[in-house]
């Protein structure tokens, strides 16, 4: 226990208690029920207090502690300050299992959501660990694999929901993480899980401290690194899965608690592991207390999980400069040396041909109520003006996002960087939502402007970090993650209100090109082309920058200007594409990664290949989105992640060092 923690924690604890008492006294000013509770003899407000508010206060503490401990374990074992329960795909797996069970086989939920969600979470975590095991649980591999699994799971879940042509409001709220309780069962289950996990974490504290030397160092000290990592991950997964099953997605507590613990001076592994659950419990309690205070006696306005994101995002951004040095992601060889093609030109030509062929064929083939149909010449000419703009727009959006991703990955020398991760998409979606609420009946142009402004605002914030010369790339990423999470929290809060605007946000979030016109498509294509030309012009910057700031400055690169210029380039590309396809697509992460994986190593080949792959992905996704759920149209961005993520997971499983 550090001195700062001793001063800070009690103050926060009192604040949390006051907030809870505020809600409790508003419900029932006096005459509180006596222990043991007997519903038969109690009035309705007494029952509400004893079986609603009291377990709710308790579960906030228990769930927060569980998330804090889970995050601390994951960050220790992945040696990655951006790791948290969601990066392993646990929540995504739980969500998918729950949605699938609700829609396809409601009988499975007979015994509560617990077993179903736990199976989903376990399967997702198992898949991530199966990938990780092939590389001795190298941190970068685990995080990439986890994000891919989470993304695929959430895309499938949303696709299932939308393909049935109905929206499940309760699932949307569950996604936001509501803490409303009806009895003490949830508290009992979570407390039992937390107790067992706490013992496990205590036993793991010393091995984890050895592991903080790095895998090689720990191995040299005679430790079975893979087994120790597996044990720590299992404990963290069980904790996070339990919380996911009981309460839904509560982001950021697992990320913020260990970071806060370190900023309070927790230095050793034991201190971080002990402080993180306490901080997590208090953070979630204060958040829930605020939700209750805001909601008043009338009921829930928005889920608590949304608020943890709203508070957690700015908190993390504030914390960034104070964070101590940590192992940057990527220092441990995660993926082994990539391949390199001898003749990249042939592959690029092939990709370009494939993009054209895909566009042509996909215009030609369509689906009718009776089955599939290949258009004859007359119908082709009739359909072309209808289908061409959206194909062009989808391809251009994919290319723009992929370009942004390639530029950002080279700029930060981090394979995890992408417009989605850097918060540009998140900022853009906040701009979109703000425009919806601030302007009465906004047109497409106004919405587009608002979206771009939001993306730019996020960029300015992140660029503020990138501008500082000594700011390592991983901090910049962390700032972006914070912006993204804040945006996600804000959007789920908006959606949980169930107003007219919220449906519009949901529809846009998943992205669709159905309303696109020829002029818009042309503009987007021109923008994508402009960004491509600009990226090719600065290919030498992109070639030098992955070698790090020292080398780049050493050969006379204008470091500050180059960083700002490239970030602005990525921002323009993302903003333009996001207006069309929504923030959920992961094309910006996938396409550059795939381009590198098939062996496009030089900057200009990498950039061009990423743009082509992005375009192909989105064109294919557009076709799939039109056909898969016929006659309903599935969201374009979601379909793109459905296509690309499994491929990337397969690639990662296949490759060995």
């Amino acid at each position, binding site marked *: 226990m550090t001195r700062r923690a001793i001063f800070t924690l009690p103050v926060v604890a009192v604040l949390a208690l006051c907030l809870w008492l505020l809600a409790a006294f508003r419900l029932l000013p006096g005459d509180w029920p006596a222990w043991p509770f007997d519903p038969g003899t109690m009035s309705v407000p007494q029952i509400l207090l004893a079986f609603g508010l009291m377990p709710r206060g308790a579960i906030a503490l228990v769930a927060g502690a569980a998330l804090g401990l889970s995050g601390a374990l994951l960050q220790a074992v992945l040696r990655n300050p951006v790791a948290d329960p969601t990066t392993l795909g646990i929540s995504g797996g739980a969500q998918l299992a729950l949605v699938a069970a609700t829609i396809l086989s409601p009988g499975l939920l007979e015994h509560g959501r617990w077993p179903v969600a736990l199976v989903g979470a376990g399967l997702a975590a198992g898949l991530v660990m199966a990938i990780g095991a092939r590389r001795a649980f190298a941190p970068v591999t685990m995080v990439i694999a986890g994000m891919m699994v989470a993304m695929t799971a959430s895309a499938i879940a949303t696709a299932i929901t939308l393909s049935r042509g109905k929206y499940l409001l309760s699932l949307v709220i569950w996604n936001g993480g509501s803490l409303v309780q009806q009895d003490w069962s949830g508290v009992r289950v979570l407390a039992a899980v937390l107790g067992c996990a706490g013992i496990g974490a205590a036993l793991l504290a010393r091995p984890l401290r050895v592991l903080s030397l790095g895998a090689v160092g720990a191995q040299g000290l005679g430790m079975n690194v893979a087994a120790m990592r597996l044990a720590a991950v299992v404990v963290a997964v069980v904790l996070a899965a339990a919380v996911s099953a009981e309460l839904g997605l509560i982001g950021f507590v697992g990320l913020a608690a260990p970071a806060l613990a370190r900023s309070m001076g927790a230095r050793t592994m034991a201190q971080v592991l002990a402080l993180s659950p306490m901080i997590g419990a208090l953070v979630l309690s204060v958040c829930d207390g605020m939700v209750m205070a805001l909601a008043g006696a009338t009921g829930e306005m928005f889920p608590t999980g949304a608020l943890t994101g709203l508070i957690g995002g700015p908190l993390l951004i504030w914390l960034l400069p104070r964070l101590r040095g940590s192992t940057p992601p990527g220092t441990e060889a995660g993926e082994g040396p*990539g391949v390199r093609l001898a003749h990249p030109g042939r592959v690029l030509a092939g990709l370009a041909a494939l993009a054209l062929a895909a566009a042509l064929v996909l215009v030609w083939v369509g689906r009718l109520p009776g089955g599939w149909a290949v258009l004859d010449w007359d119908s082709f000419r009739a359909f072309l003006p209808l289908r061409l703009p959206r194909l062009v727009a989808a391809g251009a959006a994919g290319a723009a996002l992929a370009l942004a991703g390639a530029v950002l990955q080279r700029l930060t020398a981090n394979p995890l960087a992408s417009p989605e991760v850097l918060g540009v998409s998140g900022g853009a979606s906040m701009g979109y939502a703000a425009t919806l609420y601030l302007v009465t009946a906004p047109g497409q142009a106004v919405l587009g402007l608002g979206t771009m402004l939001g993306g730019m605002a996020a960029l300015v914030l992140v660029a503020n970090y990138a501008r500082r010369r000594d700011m390592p790339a991983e901090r910049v990423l962390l700032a972006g993650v914070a912006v993204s999470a804040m945006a996600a929290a804000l959007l789920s809060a908006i959606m949980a209100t169930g107003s007219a605007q919220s449906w519009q946000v949901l529809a846009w979030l998943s992205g669709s090109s159905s309303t696109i016109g020829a002029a818009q498509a042309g503009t987007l294509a021109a923008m994508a082309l402009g960004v491509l030309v600009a990226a090719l012009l600065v290919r*030498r*910057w992109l*070639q030098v920058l*992955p070698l790090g700031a*020292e080398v780049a400055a*050493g050969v*006379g690169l*204008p470091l500050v200007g180059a960083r700002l210029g490239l970030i602005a380039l990525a921002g323009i590309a993302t903003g333009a594409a996001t207006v069309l396809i929504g923030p959920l697509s992961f094309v910006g992460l996938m396409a550059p990664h795939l381009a590198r994986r098939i062996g496009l190593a030089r900057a200009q080949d990498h950039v061009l290949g990423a743009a082509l792959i992005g375009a192909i992905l989105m064109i294919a996704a557009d076709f799939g989105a039109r056909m898969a759920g016929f006659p309903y149209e599935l969201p374009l961005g979601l379909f793109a992640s459905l296509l690309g993520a499994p491929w990337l997971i397969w690639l990662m499983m296949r490759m060995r060092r």
Partner: protein
Amino acid sequence: MTDALFRIRGLCVDVPGRRLIHGIDLDLPGRQMVALIGHNGSSKSTLLKVLARQIAHSAGSVAFAGRAITDYSARDYARRLAFMPQTTPPAEGMTVRELVALGRYPWHGALGRFGPDDHAAVDGAMAECGVVAFADQLVDTLSGGERQRCWLAMMVAQQAGTLLLDEPISALDIAHQVEVLSLVRRMCHDQGRTAIVVLHEVNMAARFCDHVVAMKAGRLALQGSPDELMRPEALEHVYGLPMQVLLRGDGGRVAVPA
């Protein structure tokens, strides 16, 4: 010394809460191989990074070839001075030729044509550092010594008159240490370049360098020729440890802890 390449006056470097370099006055000669030595944490690497403009100094002045180093533009400075960091970063998916060609950036810039001059400089640099045989291999597949020579070739391709090297031999075996230092020494003596090299090994510094600057706790401990350094009392002053100097048959001196 009238033709000092670097003229350092009252140089201070601060990091939050601590002063790393305490007001150094120093002239570094040109067209020589200069060793920067000192114990761990003596701020010898910090001094080198200030000279390379990798970190900014907080007080004092540093002039390079008669002009304050802050007056040069980034590319202008890179044409005159090349810097190799202590740990060379992984060059993911890059061939040796591409890495060496990066050294031409100060000359052609972001948009300029990669012309015949550039090709000639890259070929010449690879030949000088003996890496022509690996030209089309991936940098990351080479051994430590070969990789170090590739990075040296990149600095040579930069055609800078001054090379700054931060512990270039710390990860190499003794044969490769000698090889790399001989290469740097040849560059200085045959082509009239200046090299400023941070070294841990005092015997290597004395054997290969023409001038030695010793740092101690952020201050200048001594500077002079290798012979002036290789005396027991001078070495004890620099390293805070009794040292013995043995005379070899050929007149060279070897320092060992007493």
